[in-house]
């Protein structure tokens, strides 16, 4: 019952807002929903419902999806006006952005980005960045839309948004492509460089993109292509005739002459675009068809453009508004390329049911298409149009006939005669228009036409339309010498009716009088004087001025002087004929299919289509490296290693942000280099892949144990300001598996910048080192971390090399601890025992040690052992046993460490490996670590 009361219209209108508020605050979902529906109804009607904001915004977190959606509608509409209150809802959206349902994430982003409140710009930015990396393409699409919203809210975010656009442009989803290109067009249409790498992908995706996206992408690619490819029109422009000849006569001689000029070869990418857009001519979406048509018009070789004709003509069967736009574009095209549309001439015949603007456009096109061959058909068609009941259209047809008559000289006389016949038409507008057009035609035809003028003079009394009367008067005046008898008589009649005429007729009467006065003053002197006197006192000042001027010019007096002599030459000078041309003549300055073209004026945000470049820019920018399938694995691995290395970097030296960044760069380089190397050295690769995947995670854990020791490589006193430290990051070396990874931290403690830091000579000469890339410049106080790889060949012999700057060379050496020459190996306890069994006798080294009590627990033991050696922990079922396994980096020999706890802190330490030298050194190191506190 309660629900129904407010639906009564009277009550509803009286206390609308109070009721709605009450309903929104009620606990019943259905009431809230009903209230929201009414509020949306108010918004739809354009009524103000902003008062209800506090009550509505409370429901933003509702569980009911429809209610929630309606609240969203409301929020988007009023948030701008109620910014403070709108902020209350933000946290709800932030939460929803993390929702597992992609639909909710997307809609939260849609609404959040539609709330035009400047204060939430950073939140929006963050949300967009996150959504752009979302797994759901639908959410990514929404983020592309949000980019534009944020940009229009705060243009200062441009740079950051471009980064997101750049990322999304790489997206391979057809769902995203259209939207991100739209964002690109809105935010940074001039950043054509972002397109290069994505060009081929966009071309290939195009057919599968949704229709609206296709329009946007095609229009962007049109602009792109005009900046990147050379013109395919050159041969046609220069000497079309010659080219045609070469085409038909396959004589070798003729061809030779041509090959001297550089033949045009279309860029394959240019062809790709044309080829991939062509099927879209068959789209049901008229906007898509039009955009392909304009692409061909602006980009295709001239002889290929005509494939779009049929599709454009097809669009003429669509809705009236579609016809209007398509006809406008055909009108522009048909001026330059009659041949394209001539076979379809009949499609442009006017139907009586067409709207006036459609009729006018069809007339325009028919006129453009007229030539000697088809003019008779067209004129016959025009004849029926003249009889149309739509008089404005009939008048336009007469104009069109006039244009045909001037353009095609063969039919000028026929047209003229036809128009003269129309002078006896019952309809005034038809007659008037005919007079005006005849006037223009006679001007262009300097032959004998006194008959027509006489005929018109006869009709003069019956014509009332001022423009037509004025035109006849002008004609008689201009050619008064050809109709010497009639002209004075017309003037006589005009003198009688002068005061009752319209202004334009009066002006032409004055003109006629003046011209007759100069040529036939005997008969017309008095009449002229009379008309000039009437004009002198006319109400219109233009007519008074003109009269005064004409009198001074033609009537000799003592004041008038020299001008008088030239009166005849001034008034009766031969006048250039008016040019009758299409109103679409200069429309081709606009890109076809655009709003600007439709309006014939530059619309806001119109992007000029650039001219073809004379020389094509570098084609290779569009090349994309193909990422190998195996690349993805290594990418993952190295991203892991990045984490660990930066961790260790921090803990060891607290190196600055800049250093770790450059480190990342180094890593990236490594990544790309690693893949080919894997291929070139199959043996290494085999061994590499032998290591089970689990060991990797093990390694991560081990290396995070304990502080990593950093050693000095070069003191700044000896290094003249250049200081270097190094440590072992304990990750597999990316350059070569047999190398040990070393990170070197270079810092500049001098007061000037150091340049070209690199590695010079090394000893022993056979020592294989992977050097870091030369550091071009190191500023004072700055430091940089670089990675290198050294193959120590499983020996602790120091690697000596020279660290060079531009000016100096410093000999340095890296002496590895034996534990660093290992890498962890994961194995089960059984495997460990089995392997240990194989490495008995000579290969076993053992010692009984007395441990520091603090080290007695198995955890402490692990920590100590791992700090000394880069080995992996082998999970043990026996409490009193600790086992560790590793391999030497260079040769991959197994190194097994086991520790058996005995009573009172004594333990038996055993090392099994074929590398006995390493074993004794390792034994010593571990013993030392465990016996010390």
């Amino acid at each position, binding site marked *: 019952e309660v629900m129904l009361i407010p639906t009564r219209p009277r009550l509803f209108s009286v206390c609308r807002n109070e009721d709605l508020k009450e309903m929104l605050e009620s606990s019943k979902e259905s009431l809230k929903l009903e209230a929201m529906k009414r509020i949306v109804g108010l918004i739809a009607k354009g009524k103000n419902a902003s008062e209800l904001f506090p009550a509505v915004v409370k429901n933003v977190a509702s569980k009911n999806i429809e209610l929630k959606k309606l609240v969203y509608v409301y929020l988007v509409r009023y948030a701008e006006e109620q910014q403070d209150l709108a902020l209350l809802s933000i946290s709800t959206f932030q939460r929803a952005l993390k929702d597992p349902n992609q639909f909710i994430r997307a809609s939260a982003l849609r609404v959040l980005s539609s709330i035009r409140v400047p204060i939430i710009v950073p939140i929006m930015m963050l949300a967009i960045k996150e959504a752009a990396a979302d797994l759901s393409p639908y959410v990514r699409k929404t983020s592309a839309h949000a980019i534009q919203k944020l940009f229009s809210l705060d243009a200062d975010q441009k740079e950051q948004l471009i980064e997101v656009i750049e990322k999304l442009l790489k997206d391979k989803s057809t769902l995203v492509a259209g939207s991100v290109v739209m964002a690109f067009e809105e935010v940074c249409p001039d950043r054509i460089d972002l397109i290069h790498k994505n060009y081929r992908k966009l071309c290939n995706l195009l057919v599968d993109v949704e229709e609206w996206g296709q329009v946007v992408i095609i229009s962007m690619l049109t602009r792109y292509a005009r900046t990147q490819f050379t013109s395919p029109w050159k041969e046609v422009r220069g000497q079309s005739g010659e080219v045609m000849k070469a085409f038909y006569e396959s004589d070798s001689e003729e061809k030779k002459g041509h090959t001297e000029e550089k033949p045009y070869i279309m860029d394959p990418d240019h062809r790709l675009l044309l080829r991939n857009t062509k*099927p879209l001519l068959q789209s049901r979406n008229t906007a898509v068809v039009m955009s392909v048509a304009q692409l061909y018009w602006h980009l295709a070789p001239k002889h290929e453009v005509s494939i779009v004709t049929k599709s454009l003509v097809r669009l003429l069967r669509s809705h009236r508004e579609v016809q209007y736009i398509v006809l406008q574009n055909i009108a522009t095209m048909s001026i330059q390329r009659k041949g394209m549309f001539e076979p379809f001439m009949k499609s442009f015949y006017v139907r009586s049911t067409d709207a006036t603007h459609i009729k006018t456009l069809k007339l325009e096109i028919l006129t453009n298409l007229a030539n000697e061959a088809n003019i008779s058909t067209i004129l016959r068609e025009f004849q029926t149009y003249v009889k149309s009941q739509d008089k404005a259209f009939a008048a336009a047809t007469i104009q069109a006939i006039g244009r045909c008559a001037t353009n095609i000289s063969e039919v000028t006389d026929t047209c003229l005669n036809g128009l003269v016949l129309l002078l006896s038409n019952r309809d005034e507008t038809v007659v008037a228009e005919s007079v005006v057009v005849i006037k223009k035609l006679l001007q262009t035809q300097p032959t004998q036409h006194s008959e027509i003028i006489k005929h018109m003079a006869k009709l003069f009394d019956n014509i009332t339309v001022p423009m037509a009367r004025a035109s006849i008067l002008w004609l008689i005046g201009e050619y008064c010498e050809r109709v010497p008898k009639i002209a004075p008589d017309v003037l006589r009649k005009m003198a009688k009716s002068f005061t009752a005429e319209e202004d334009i007729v009066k002006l032409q009467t004055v003109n006629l009088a003046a011209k007759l006065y100069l040529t036939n003053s005997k008969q017309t002197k008095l009449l002229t004087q009379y008309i000039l006197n009437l004009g002198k006192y006319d109400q219109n000042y233009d007519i008074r001025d003109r009269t005064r001027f004409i009198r001074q010019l033609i009537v000799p007096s003592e004041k008038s002087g020299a001008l008088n002599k030239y009166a005849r030459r001034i008034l009766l000078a031969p006048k250039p004929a008016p040019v009758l041309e299409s109103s679409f003549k200069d429309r081709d300055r606009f890109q076809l299919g655009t709003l600007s073209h439709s309006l014939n004026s530059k619309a806001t945000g119109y992007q000029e289509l650039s001219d073809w470049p004379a020389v094509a820019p570098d084609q290779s920018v569009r090349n994309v490296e193909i990422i190998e399938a195996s690349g993805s694995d290594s990418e993952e691995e190295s991203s892991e290693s990045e984490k660990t290395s930066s961790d260790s970097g921090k803990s060891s030296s607290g190196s600055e942000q800049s250093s770790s960044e450059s480190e990342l760069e180094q890593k990236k380089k490594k990544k790309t280099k690693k893949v080919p190397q894997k291929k070139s050295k199959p043996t290494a690769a085999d061994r590499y892949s032998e290591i089970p995947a689990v060991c990797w995670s093990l390694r991560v854990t081990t290396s995070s144990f304990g502080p990593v020791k950093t050693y000095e490589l070069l003191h700044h006193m000896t290094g003249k300001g250049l200081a270097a430290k190094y440590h072992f990051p304990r990750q597999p070396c990316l350059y070569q598996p047999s190398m040990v990874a070393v990170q070197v931290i270079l810092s500049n403690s001098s007061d000037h910048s150091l340049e070209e830091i690199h590695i010079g000579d090394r000893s022993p000469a056979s020592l294989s080192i992977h050097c870091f890339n030369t550091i071009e410049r190191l500023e004072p106080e700055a430091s940089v971390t670089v990675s290198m790889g050294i193959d120590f060949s499983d020996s602790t012999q120091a690697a000596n090399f020279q660290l060079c700057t531009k000016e100096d060379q410093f000999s340095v050496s890296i002496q590895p601890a034996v534990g660093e020459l290992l890498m962890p190996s994961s194995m089960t306890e059984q495997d460990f025992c089995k392997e240990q069994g194989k490495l008995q006798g000579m290969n076993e080294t053992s010692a009984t040690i007395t441990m520091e009590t603090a080290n007695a627990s198995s955890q402490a033991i692990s920590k100590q052992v791992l700090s000394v050696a880069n080995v992996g922990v082998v999970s043990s079922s026996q409490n009193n046993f600790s086992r560790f396994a590793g391999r030497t980096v260079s040769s991959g020999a197994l190194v097994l460490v086991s520790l058996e706890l005995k009573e009172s802190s004594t333990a038996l330490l055993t090392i099994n490996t074929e590398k006995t030298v390493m074993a004794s050194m390792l034994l010593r190191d571990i013993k030392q670590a465990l016996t010390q506190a």
Partner: protein
Amino acid sequence: MIHSLFLVNASGDIFLEKHWKSVVSRSVCDYFFEAQERATEPENVPPVIPTPHHYLISVLRHRIYFVAVIQSEVPPLFVIEFLHRVVDTFQDYFGVCTEAAIKDNVVVVYELLEEMLDNGFPLATESNILKELIKPPTILRTMVNTITGSTNVGEQLPTGQLSVVPWRRTGVKYTNNEAYFDVVEEIDAIIDKSGSTITAEIQGVIDACVKLTGMPDLTLSFMNPRLLDDVSFHPCVRFKRWEAERILSFIPPDGNFRLLSYHVSSQNLVAIPVYVKHNITFREGSSQGRFDLTLGPKQTMGKAVESVLVSSQLPRGVLNANLNPSQGTYTFDPVTKLLSWDVGKINPQKLPSLKGTMSLQAGASKPDENPTINIQFKIQQMAISGLKVNRLDMYGEKYKPFKGIKYMTKAGNLCQFRLH
């Protein structure tokens, strides 16, 4: 792209507005009203109108203007096509697209518009997807919703957005699996006084109603595909297959959709299935005119010509008409001078005729022309071009669907006889 949308009725009232970006005052429509006033007919309002700060792009359907407000350069066809899509969607949802229907369903309209555009850029326009997001209103559902408080809005993201066939929803289930295809051809022609054809063309469409379970993959082949000169497809049709084999291969959307539009090449002569005999005379000085019109069938292969409707715009001088139809009914509107005659079916044995007198304005000069006559008609079970479907096959699903095909020919927007 599209900033705002205003719906304007025939009397020039804005009855709905929707904004996708910041709000544009409805006063921007004043420029539209000016143009509307200048236009003699509702159809004559220019589709693109520039104003100082915005551009108005409008379409007129069902006597409602859909006026979109644009702020910067955009392909006008993009907007026009979209607006028509909106109208189609409304029609699909409410059965009719009238002011009353829109006002009654204003919430659904708003929800639809919200989903169809995001920030002025089309988001979801496929009917299959929209229907999953927002259920079309039915009387039953409206009642249930009022009682239970449940909603029209779907809770899941339509699966189509993410699948490879974005036009088809997943999980379609029917107990009766059926696929119907309607081949509908329209003739557009202009015939001159002597009965010879000035221009004639046939365009056709294949509309489908497919209710099949699962993900069926259909192929449709024609006996004479060469007849089709120019085609445009629903996005579901595989273009390459058509190019190579002239076979329509597609995974259909669920429900009603237009599979194909085509144009029959103009080399084939088009026979107009009706002819007109006429004798309309006005005499100078007389206030009477004679009107005599007879229709007859021509080359219909024995099929009946039905639903014939004749309309003609008589000259302005005609005050009234006093006519006598041999069958059907006629009306004459003295204001618009529009004569229309609902003939019905043409019986070849007894040809329908309309005879009588017209009274003319006293003293007015004789109208100098004969009017043009527009004719509407339908012929069932025949495609005038002779296009024939060969077979329909289904792959990808195991059941046997029921398949049906229907042919029809009708007059297009214009089948015009010029009597002058």
